[in-house]
């Protein structure tokens, strides 16, 4: 590494390159200066939201938003929580996210197991189909899915819309279908890299396909499942589009889509809007602090390890 770093220091002679660095002995002020400036720029939008959220509206009206006057407290968070109906929004998000993530990982791991541990005629074809499906813009499917769910008639005792619109089932099903493709791709690469001898030995011992999947491959795949699970929790929690399309009643919306209504509701009160925005960050922040490594692993799983 030292060699590389010393080598890099010679690059400082090159004009117009921001990688001006000192040698290993000298701290690299140029890089640090650049990174500190960028980091501050990066933190400003979120920092401003937190700053605004902590100040009462009366104080910002009196002193202006760009000031330090007045008091700082959490009252806006309490008000935003109650007026925005965040208890309901978070419950709705949980109702969508938990089943979607579990179903996605279950289906994706089964499919990945079948395509990576056995060779049959269409396994690569199906894997290509799964991978491609994940990459389509969701808007391409909006009209057909909306009409399919609208014309799928249900008794009113099951669905208050008389069809699959305005049901969590619609959102969970489509979220799952959309995410299964990517997870299948990553898990199949992961499972392919597991030694073939393990399932071979189990097969000789008379273990059926299900036992090989559940007792041998799944435990070994745990790191990948943890990483993908974390990633999918965030992705599905952040999903805006499908609930927007399928769910009409505001009381059924999850947090991310509910922000759309909240923005209109709090438009005249930036302090409340900021507090509402910060509240929706909280679940993400918890996962960010607790499971950042898993999340990054999920993102880079395919990209770095193949």
């Amino acid at each position, binding site marked *: 590494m030292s060699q590389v770093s010393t080598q890099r220091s010679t690059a400082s002679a090159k004009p117009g390159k921001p990688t001006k660095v000192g040698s290993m002995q000298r701290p690299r002020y140029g890089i640090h200066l650049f990174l500190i400036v960028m980091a501050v720029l990066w933190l400003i939008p979120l920092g401003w939201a937190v700053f605004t959220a902590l100040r009462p509206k009366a104080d910002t009206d009196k002193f202006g938003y760009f000031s330090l006057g007045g008091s700082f407290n959490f009252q806006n968070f309490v008000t935003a929580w109650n007026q925005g109906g965040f208890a309901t929004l978070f419950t709705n998000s949980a109702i969508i996210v938990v089943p979607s993530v579990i179903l996605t990982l279950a289906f994706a791991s089964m499919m990945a197991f079948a395509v990576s541990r056995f060779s049959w005629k269409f396994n690569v074809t199906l894997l290509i189909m799964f991978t491609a499906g994940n990459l389509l813009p969701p808007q391409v499917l909006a009209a057909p899915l909306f009409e399919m769910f609208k014309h799928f008639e249900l008794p009113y005792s099951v669905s208050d819309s008389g069809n699959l619109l305005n049901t969590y089932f619609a959102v969970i099903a489509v979220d799952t279908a959309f995410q299964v493709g990517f997870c299948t791709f990553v898990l199949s690469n992961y499972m392919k*890299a597991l030694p073939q001898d393990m399932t071979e030995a189990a097969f000789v011992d008379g273990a059926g396909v299900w036992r090989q999947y559940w007792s041998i491959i799944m435990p070994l795949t745990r790191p990948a499942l943890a990483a993908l699970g974390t990633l999918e929790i965030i992705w599905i929690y952040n999903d805006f589009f499908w609930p927007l399309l399928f769910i009409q009643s505001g009381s059924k919306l999850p947090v991310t889509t509910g922000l759309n209504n909240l923005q209109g509701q709090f438009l005249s009160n930036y302090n409340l809007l900021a507090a509402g925005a910060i509240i929706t960050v909280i679940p993400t922040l918890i996962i960010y602090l607790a499971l950042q490594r898993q999340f990054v692993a999920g993102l880079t799983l395919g990209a770095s390890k193949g």
Partner: protein
Amino acid sequence: MADTTLGAPASARGLLSPGRPRRRRRYSLLSRRDKIVLGAMVFVPTLIQLVLIWIPTVISVFLSFVRWNGLAFSDIRPAGLANYAYVFRDYPPFWPALQHNVLWLVFLAVIATPLGLLLAILLDQNIRGTRIYQSIFFGPVMLSLVLIGVIWQLFYSQNNGLLNFLLGTSGTPRAVDWFGDPKVNIWAALIAATWRHAGYVMILYLAGLKGVDPSLREAASLDGANAVQTFFRVVFPVMRPINIVIVVITIIESLRAFDIVYIINRGTNGLELISALVIQNLVGEGQVIGVGSALAAILLVVSLVPIIIYLSRTFKKEA
């Protein structure tokens, strides 16, 4: 979902040695019960993919050639190319939207992606506090684009936003409404999108840089290459699988861009994007399913280009 996640080709990294598929179990050796179990494991996910992704994709193309009010199936009337003719000739937001999608792609490709790469290169050098910097730049990647829209709305607001205070124009007639003014709002939205995209690219390239064999750099430096030469001639080409992933992610993110413009103003008044026009035609008073589907089909055809490039590179050695 506005998030594009991709894996790099396993085959490109040599994980699939040619001998491996032969060692995989042959389907025909399985017992009948095992065949049923395996069949179910394949059938259920495949059925979900077909019913909820691929059949709707085909229907979407079909709907672009008909006129329909969305009520009874018997109301469907053939329309030929009328929907497309309308979109190309008589639908005012279409060409601006297409330009905005191209601008989105160019901005992400020329500003956001290189910025992410630069951050990754700098943070890869064992500098002090690298984990803190990484956490900061990476933070916005975990936020939804909707939330990013709201957070930047607070920053950009005409009278109460930080930006106009810092520029000294707040409260004056010169104060710009960054998200409202159709001349500037696409740029304001692009900067907000960059906030997220650069961190995403950074984290992928950091993983890629860690995977580069250090002996390659040593060999290059022994041969007298400087850091810039080493990077562009040796390190960057070695990261080819990641580069492809990043190119595809950048293209697809720019086609999928939707949430952030929708939360700002539903994708109107300077923020038209094809994806937003699709939705505008499907919901609301217009409800022109044929026109919305024609726009969706155009979006599909454009999206298939990067998707096919990616798939052919990824699965070339396996098929």
